[in-house]
């Protein structure tokens, strides 16, 4: 039943019992997800905790392979088992632990109250169905709207994500779309049931900056509603600067820094965060210069060192960094960092 989880709308409680800090829409606690691979068991997500408040846009950034998508898939309980398993943690959505719901309850929630925009549009779209059918399906399924209405709504959604010729486009198949059009079809699908929580995994990598701005404005608008929120997974630090209220930085399956966006850019405290900031090419940068990548390779999750996972690439590392995993510590208001050099 879709009614299993109810969210108190903040407007309903305003007035009489106001002044209580609003409960976060989503609260992830100690999430640990492992995969069994030929090279051993890896903790793709290792003891990850964060909150997403109502109306908030939370960005998750971090190196390729750091566990961003696995975190998102864990929230939706879409981890392929085997080889994967959510081993520990709580995922509280509106106060209820999603990890305790039955599969049927979870199906009722997915694509409905929580929607995900997947990272790879081509592998998430069905090549044999028209785009209109795919966008209309969640409406038909969750809202029990007859197909004619669902298809009309689908065309409306395709227009909302800036598609032209929606009549013809809704009848076309994914292979007839450009990369960016496929990505927008995915977004239209995710928006179909007006979800409360949208998890967007690299939603605009295939889009030019003007369409990107329109789509992200649209997502941000929806997220600022009284019941909703947005988790934005992206490697575009310009997009994070423009849209995120708060940022979680991941490295090797862990949260290494978490802070309000302005704070993070003004004073990045983890050496990995600083390296990330330095490798961004800028429109006003010096074109003759080489870009500054973070030297070295991302760590092998199957053979993580005892100490800090970033130590091998960290310009500031000292011996103590290699002896124990640094815990995530509060170093300022809402600012947490996992580095022993920062306190």
């Amino acid at each position: 039943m879709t009614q299993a989880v109810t969210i108190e709308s903040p407007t309903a409680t305003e007035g009489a019992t106001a002044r209580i800090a609003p409960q976060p829409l989503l609260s992830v606690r100690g999430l640990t997800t492992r995969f069994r691979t030929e090279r051993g068991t890896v903790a793709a997500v290792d003891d990850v905790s964060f909150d997403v408040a109502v109306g908030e846009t939370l960005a998750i950034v971090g190196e390729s392979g750091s566990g961003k998508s696995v975190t998102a898939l864990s929230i939706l309980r879409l981890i392929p088992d085997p080889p994967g398993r959510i081993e520990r943690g709580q995922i509280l959505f509106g106060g209820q632990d999603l990890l305790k719901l039955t599969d049927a309850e979870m199906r009722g929630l997915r694509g409905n109250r929580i929607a995900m925009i997947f990272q790879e549009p081509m592998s998430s779209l069905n090549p044999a169905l028209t785009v209109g059918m795919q966008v209309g399906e969640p409406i038909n399924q969750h809202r029990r709207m007859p197909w004619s209405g669902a298809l009309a709504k689908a065309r409306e959604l395709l227009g909302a994500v800036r598609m032209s010729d929606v009549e013809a486009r809704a009848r076309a198949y994914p292979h007839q779309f450009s990369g960016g059009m496929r990505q927008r079809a995915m977004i239209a699908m995710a928006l179909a049931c007006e979800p409360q929580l949208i998890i967007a995994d690299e939603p605009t990598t295939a889009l030019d900056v003007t369409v990107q701005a329109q789509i992200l404005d649209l997502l941000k608008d929806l997220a600022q509603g009284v019941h909703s929120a947005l988790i934005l997974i992206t490697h575009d630090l310009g997009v994070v600067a423009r849209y995120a209220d708060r940022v979680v930085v991941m490295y090797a399956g862990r949260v290494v820094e978490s802070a309000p966006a302005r704070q993070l850019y003004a004073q990045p405290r983890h050496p990995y965060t600083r390296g990330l900031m330095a490798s961004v090419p800028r429109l006003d940068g010096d074109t003759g210069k080489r870009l500054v990548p973070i030297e070295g390779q991302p760590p092998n999750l199957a053979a993580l060192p005892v100490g800090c996972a970033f130590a091998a690439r960290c310009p500031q590392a000292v011996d103590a960094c290699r002896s124990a995993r640094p815990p995530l510590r509060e170093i300022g208001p809402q600012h947490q960092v996992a580095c022993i050099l920062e306190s």
Partner: protein
Amino acid sequence: MTQPLLRVDNLKVHFPVFKGAVFQHEVATVRAVDGVSFTLARGETLGLVGESGCGKSTTGLAAIRMLTPTSGRIEFEGQDISTLDKTQMQPLRRRMQMVYQDPYGSLNPRMKVRDIISEPLEVHGLAGERRARAEKIAQLMQAVGLLPDMADRYPHEFSGGQRQRIGIARALALEPSLIVCDEPVSALDVSIQAQVVNVFVDLQQRLGLAYLFIAHDLAVVRHVSNRIAVMYLGRIVEIAPRDEIYRTPLHPYTQALLAAVPVADPEVERARKRVTISGEIPSAMNPPSGCRFHTRCPHAFARCRTDDPPLVGMGSGRAAACHLHAAP
């Protein structure tokens, strides 16, 4: 002037649109590429940017004849290749390669890296005897910054950035003179993106490769390109040397594109006046009359609605298709 490596002249690629479940009949045409011309010199990088769906990938695919153009002329090393068939193209294939956006989908998951990289050599009968082949693979892997002892691993054992470099090594195996890069770094996080961009730049300097570099990230395009072409709805609307286009964009669409780039600084972003081009994205099946951008252009005047502005040279290697910049 010396002959360009690639000359594309009035290229058109149109796709039919069908309707009907059983008896399909053509009801319209998507004019994906609709009169595109440019040249690319040896060792040069031409950046190609523009709105999603404007025809960048189609232009790139047609330029190296992975697609058959509807009309227009494509000259590669002085030879007209626009109408060559598959067998006629075969000997030319090795000199033009493609690197795709998706480092996940474009590598066969069941092949070892060594076989992925040497596959094009086999196809062209250039693999040579075992030792020479192994050496060649090691060289290629080194050229893109991979350790040769990784050759026996499978793609899923690599990170996104490493996989993208495998794709580049494969493209380099045949020593091409032209590589079409279709969003080669969009799927990568910034620190790996920086590594891969450096690989592209170094290889160009060492091997004199030319790139047609398609990307959405204007800062990356600026970093790698000598010249930049901006496309809108199947056409090039502006083309200019790199610094000119960023310093003084002439076409209103180019201006809008540059103004929309997010800056990696929340203070700048909050203080900034946001200018986004509004208006419906026009149809590629039935493009607007006159200038194709007039429906969204803040400067459009009467003539823009009726006359299609040609791409005219402005001197110093620049050209723009806009009535605001046309000779009277």
